[in-house]
């Protein structure tokens, strides 16, 4: 069985709700003549009550592996950061940092069995975007290249990457989480 390769797409295709919501640059690529994005309010434990743009809402028909729920919103809290939040719209406390793997791994590809490609309807013309979850501790930051998230027209699936050598904890050198510092805002490095 020849696996199908899916290359990480241009992340910018994905809509993301910018926080704080007052930011007029708002929700990702403006579709020329596209539908007016609706909004919905969602409660979050990290960011309080927020408004999310319809085009930043991702639906996982099968959910994230091992986690409850199926609707999430992609949130951008720092325009300069390659990291986004995948915030559950059903569990206020559930949110995962995600990023575009192509930003860090130029030759990253997702390989799936033909059957999986067909099962998920990914073989067609629509572009497929790839996100990976980020596990960050004060010691290290890693991304899950083995179970990436594929997104097509706002439908998302977490799949198992058949490509050789992909790690579930792929290190991101040069990336870290600062130890909590009281009173320090999110801006600025180090």
């Amino acid at each position: 069985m020849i696996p199908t390769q899916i290359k990480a797409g241009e992340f910018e295709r994905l809509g993301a709700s910018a926080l704080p919501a007052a930011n007029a640059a708002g929700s990702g690529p403006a579709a020329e003549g596209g539908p007016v994005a609706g909004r919905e309010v969602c409660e979050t434990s990290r960011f309080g009550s927020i408004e999310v743009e319809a085009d930043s809402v991702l639906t996982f028909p099968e959910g994230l592996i091992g986690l409850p729920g199926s609707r999430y919103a992609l949130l951008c809290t720092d325009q300069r950061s390659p990291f986004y939040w995948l915030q559950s719209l059903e569990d206020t406390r559930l949110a995962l940092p995600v990023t575009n793997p192509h930003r860090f791994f130029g030759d990253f590809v997702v390989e799936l069995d033909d059957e999986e490609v067909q099962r998920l309807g990914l073989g067609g013309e629509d572009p497929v975007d790839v996100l990976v979850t980020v596990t960050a501790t004060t010691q290290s930051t890693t991304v899950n290249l083995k179970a990436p998230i594929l997104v097509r027209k706002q439908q998302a699936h977490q799949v198992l990457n058949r490509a050789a050598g992909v790690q579930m904890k792929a290190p991101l050198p040069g990336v870290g989480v600062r130890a909590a510092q009281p009173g320090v805002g999110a801006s600025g490095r180090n």
Partner: protein
Amino acid sequence: MLRISRRLGEKIIVGGDIVIEVLEVRGGTVRLGIDAPRSVPIYREELWLEVKSENEQAASTATELPTVTGDF
């Protein structure tokens, strides 16, 4: 847990639309064939658990996203 014994070539039907067939039995290894609707993903248990654990760890990040400190 329901425990069923099957011989080579025999099948189990789950929920009316998932079929599991014993394709091959060799030593301590059983090869299974699984027919399921498109909407039903199928995983090896140990991989599923590993991904679940990684998802849970990723979700335990409090409020700070990582920052890029090095030159990437």
